[in-house]
């Protein structure tokens, strides 16, 4: 832990990020938008339905919607925060100097990624008081909230790693950002489309319920964040999916394995490619 907070790149990045007014206005607007959404929803549910009270099932619906909004936030903001970490240094001509210091490539990459994630985490944590309003009305268990936060962490880490990797491999920030958004759209959107296609294909000419296993459909569901989030929010959806794919493995297990590997692979590649391999020609 001490090493984490003495990482020079991390300390410097945090200093630079929090000296920037944009960081605070970003959080302010995020909280305003979230408050308007939550209080608006509660207002509509209590006054317009004529009941005068907020039911636990409505509270759960609000929680689910907010959870998806947070996921959207992670998916859309993480690439923008991470895909420029190394390439911006390169463009500003500060990278060469940094690379001649005695910091290891891992320290540099780790410091860069952690500082970007720290900002996003601050954003999520700052929204917690608004988020926790749903507990006032019941319908959501604290353990469910914990699982969802762990899910957020893993998703955030994976996308941040992809962003840092592209930022290291690609010279121009704009191209690195596009590549990271491309990867994010593939993981969150294209896999959902492939899931639908593979479910359709596996069910062709069959009567319900399914009789043959469809691991491909299960795989696409496993790596799709919105699908996994759905099974965390609504566990019966998991059983429903299993009746279609006949694969008895919970989605979160595959998701964890896949995204941990993706994170490790991306970081490893970024660390390896940050500096030239001086001995390569030998």
């Amino acid at each position, binding site marked *: 832990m001490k090493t984490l907070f*003495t990482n*020079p*790149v991390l*300390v*410097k990045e945090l*200093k*630079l990020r929090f*000296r*920037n007014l944009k960081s605070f206005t970003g959080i302010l607007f995020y909280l305003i938008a979230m408050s308007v959404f939550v209080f608006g929803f509660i207002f509509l549910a209590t006054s317009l339905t004529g009941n005068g009270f907020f039911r636990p099932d409505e509270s759960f619906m609000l929680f689910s919607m907010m959870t998806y909004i947070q996921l959207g936030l992670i998916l859309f903001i993480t690439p923008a925060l991470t895909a420029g970490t190394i390439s911006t240094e390169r463009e*500003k*001509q*500060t990278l*060469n*100097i*940094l*690379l*001649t*210091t*005695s*910091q*290891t490539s891992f320290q540099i990459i780790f410091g860069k990624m952690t500082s970007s994630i720290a900002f996003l985490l601050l954003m999520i944590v700052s929204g917690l008081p608004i988020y926790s309003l749903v507990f006032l009305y019941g319908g959501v268990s604290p353990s469910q909230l914990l699982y969802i936060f762990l899910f957020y962490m893993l998703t955030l880490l994976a996308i941040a790693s992809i962003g840092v990797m592209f930022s290291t491999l690609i010279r121009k920030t704009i191209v690195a950002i596009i590549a990271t958004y491309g990867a994010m759209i593939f993981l969150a959107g294209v896999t959902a489309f492939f899931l639908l296609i593979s479910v359709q294909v596996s069910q062709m000419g069959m009567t319900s319920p399914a009789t043959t296993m469809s691991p491909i459909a299960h795989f696409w569901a496993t790596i799709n964040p919105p699908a996994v989030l759905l099974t965390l929010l609504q566990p019966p959806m998991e059983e429903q999916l299993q009746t279609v794919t006949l694969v008895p493995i919970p989605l979160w297990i595959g998701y964890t394995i896949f995204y941990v590997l993706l994170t490790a692979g991306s970081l490893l590649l970024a660390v390896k490619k940050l*500096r*030239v*391999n*001086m*001995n*390569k*020609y*030998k």
Partner: protein
Amino acid sequence: MIETIGLTKKYGSFYALQDLNLVVEDSTVFGFVGANGAGKSTTFSILATLLQPTAGDTFINGMSVTKNPQEVRKQIGYVPDFFGVYDQLKTDEYLDFYGASYGIKPKERAELIPKLLELVNLENKRYEYVDLLSRGMKQRLCLARALIHDPKILILDEPASGLDPRARVEMRDILRELKAMGKTILISSHILPELAEMCDSIGVIDNGKLIAQGSVADIQAQLQSEKVLRVKIIGDMQAVVSFFEMDPFVSQLVELQGKNTLQFFYRGSEEDQLQLLQRAIQQKLPILSFSEEETDLEDVFMAITKGVEIG
């Protein structure tokens, strides 16, 4: 000590650096001179572990740059030709960040930073934002940054480029001070006189090849073995051109536009030069004057790197 052995860098079929053999002794200042694109920055990038050579190797205090880059980084302080700074960092924070990057403890850094700022005459800019400093100040700050881990070797790529005359003088004074401190300094420039007075030895690089190496006086003598001669003509220019082109000691003959004058490099001795003139007179060539051009160190450098016309 810095030693490069057969250092080569190739991009496709283009040689940015070809078989560079160089030795820089401890506590000396070595000037690396060459036109833009000659291979100076490529050499420095390899020395700074930023570029991988195609062949050969470099040793910094006996450590191979290709086999032991992490250790080499601790031994060198590198100032690139172009560099940026982090906006929104103050001068002392900038140095503190790099001090931490070299693993220097916070207490030591706090003692070191004022001393370094004093060395580069920036003590009154300690709490100013780095991006608000002038180019000359940034250059000096970058030099202080390169010194933060007290390296034995300094690699300075065009440290005076883009500076106004006053900033150049200030930079030169600091380098003199560093030389007095016993640092081994490898410094590049495309302007030879800029380096001549402060260097113990210099190397001239052209098209990726080291074409001369030695003390400033040696290099000057070596390069000045080629004289520049000027011949003013009245009448048939072509006959005179043909005559001089035939001489084996004449090279790079050019006609100075609108001046009825020929100019060329001459490698022969004074006796050869006398005979050349006598032959020209015997052949009754329309020569009005025959003179040796005054050349300074800069002209000689330009001559050997075949850059531009002299005069």
